[in-house]
């Protein structure tokens, strides 16, 4: 049992936004998914004010121990989400975190207000870091831009607010500090690192979105360094992610100062990865590998 921004969770294992669609997963796995739900809190895919189709395919490229994606934030838009997705997500056996992204500060405020007033929602996550959308990169890479975005969301929503940072920044710790000062209740990192692949035959960009974001074990060491730097710079809880695929990796992120961790790409290899990693983590902290319980209290 841990507490994240005042919200009690059965454990420290979340999913990374956009890496697990509980509604689609339920179509594939049925109610067994709810009986054996792999995460202690569920983070929705990032939603935007207007619906988005996402980027043209191909959207995926496998790299050594990693993946590049250029999904482009497809989503039903705020109204579609509130009407068709939220009721279903409310049935999940764990607290719900809704990830939002706005292309202007007014959009952010509107999203925050509409989502923040819903009782089904336990927390908000502000995505200022999606490398597939210009604004995401600009906002999240600059401390003052980030602060302004956070203030606009903060002013509209009283729910706990997580700010998701981009690793494509010179100084993530400075951005995290700015988010904290602007009223964020927690920060999460890392999002994907900008990456690119070329078509084996043509030499042209493989991905429909030309560039994309790299995730998976390949980026774990980079993510761990940023999580340690950010955790050393802020007081608010840090949610660490980036290539975590075992309890040992999760323990490393907690030891580096994270309060909770999130599983992204590893869920693609096994939808139950979150479940397995939580169990491995328990075994480790019992084994006294590191003070998991302590460091997981926000």
């Amino acid at each position, binding site marked *: 049992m841990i507490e994240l921004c005042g919200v009690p969770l059965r454990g420290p294992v979340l999913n990374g936004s*956009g*890496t*697990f*669609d509980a*509604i*689609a*997963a339920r*179509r*594939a*796995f*049925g109610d*067994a*998914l709810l009986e*054996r739900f*792999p995460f202690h809190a569920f983070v929705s*895919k990032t939603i935007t004010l207007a619906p988005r*189709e*996402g980027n*043209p*395919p*191909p*959207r*995926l490229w*496998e*790299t*050594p*121990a*990693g*993946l590049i*994606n250029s*999904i482009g934030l*497809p989503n039903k838009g705020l109204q579609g989400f509130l009407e068709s997705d939220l009721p279903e997500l409310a049935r999940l056996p764990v607290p719900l975190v809704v990830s939002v992204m706005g292309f202007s500060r007014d959009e952010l405020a509107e999203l925050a207000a509409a989502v923040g007033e819903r009782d089904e929602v336990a927390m908000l996550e502000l995505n200022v870091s999606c490398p597939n959308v210009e604004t995401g990169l600009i906002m999240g890479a600059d401390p003052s831009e980030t602060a302004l975005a956070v203030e606009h969301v903060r002013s509209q929503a009283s729910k706990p607010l997580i700010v998701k940072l981009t690793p494509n920044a010179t100084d993530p710790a400075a951005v995290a500090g700015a988010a904290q000062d602007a009223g964020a209740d927690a920060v999460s990192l890392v999002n994907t690192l900008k990456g690119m692949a070329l078509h084996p035959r043509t030499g042209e960009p493989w991905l429909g979105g030309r560039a994309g974001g790299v995730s*998976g*074990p390949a980026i774990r060491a980079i993510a761990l360094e940023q999580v340690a730097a950010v955790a050393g710079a802020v007081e608010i809880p840090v949610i660490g992610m980036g290539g975590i695929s075992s309890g040992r990796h999760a323990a490393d992120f907690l030891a580096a100062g994270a309060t909770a961790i999130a599983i992204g*790409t590893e*869920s*693609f*290899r*096994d*939808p*139950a990865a979150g*479940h397995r990693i939580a169990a491995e983590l328990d075994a480790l902290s019992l084994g006294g590998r590191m003070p998991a319980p302590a460091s997981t209290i926000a």
Partner: protein
Amino acid sequence: MSEPRTLAPPERRIAQVSGVERLGAYDLITALDPTGPTSPRPGQFYMLAAEEGWGGGDDERPYLPRAFSYARARVEEDGIALSFLLEAVGPGTQRLAELAPDEGLALLGPLGVGFRPAANGTRPLLVGGGIGAAPLLCWEEELAAEARSADTDRAPEVLLGFRSAAHAQAAALFAAESQVVTDDGSVGRRALVTELLAAELEADANATIYACGPPPMLEAVRALCSERDVPAQLAMESGMACGFGACFGCVVPTRNGYLRLCVDGPVLDADLLEEVV
């Protein structure tokens, strides 16, 4: 109509490889799945990875599991024996083709939606191109059994096209005699399988088409069928990372916008597609 989708357990499990059979240009891998559902629907697929040594191939890959239609399923007392027909085209399929008996095969599935019943009163025509024959194997088996029990004359007919004789060996896996053509004429006529389809539809257009193969073939099938208003279901492919709707990576453009092939397919009604790309 409830969609032909058997639910999968929400976790990856380990099946034990029981047979690895070289079939000309392809490999037929059979593994015993101890705990999975015993009735996957033809057209559904599984995400596969070798339990050991997944990675370290060309370019330090594979990393993610790979999608494969099941070609055959046999219920045995200690589980279900699943067979996959695969063509080694890269690090993932190469590693799978090297699997030895008793090695572990990590799998998730069955996933996606399979083939739907034929339109009333139409005869089922199965059209396969190359490795696209895989999902048609279990479908022919089921349709033939139905035809026998209902004893109608609606037994499925199978049309197959292959690159060469080595690939055409897969035709032997079908129960019924199938019409086979090859690109090099080494088996049957030198022709495209869509030529066989066109001839069949000339003779009798009262059919439902089930097709799987490379995109250009599927597009030709789609075009042929839409001209003649013949219902067609296409088992399609796209690059997949997860197989259960998590990554949004496997989308294909349809008249309803982008659809995730792993949850809304891999079998799609041809009508849904402007064009197969």
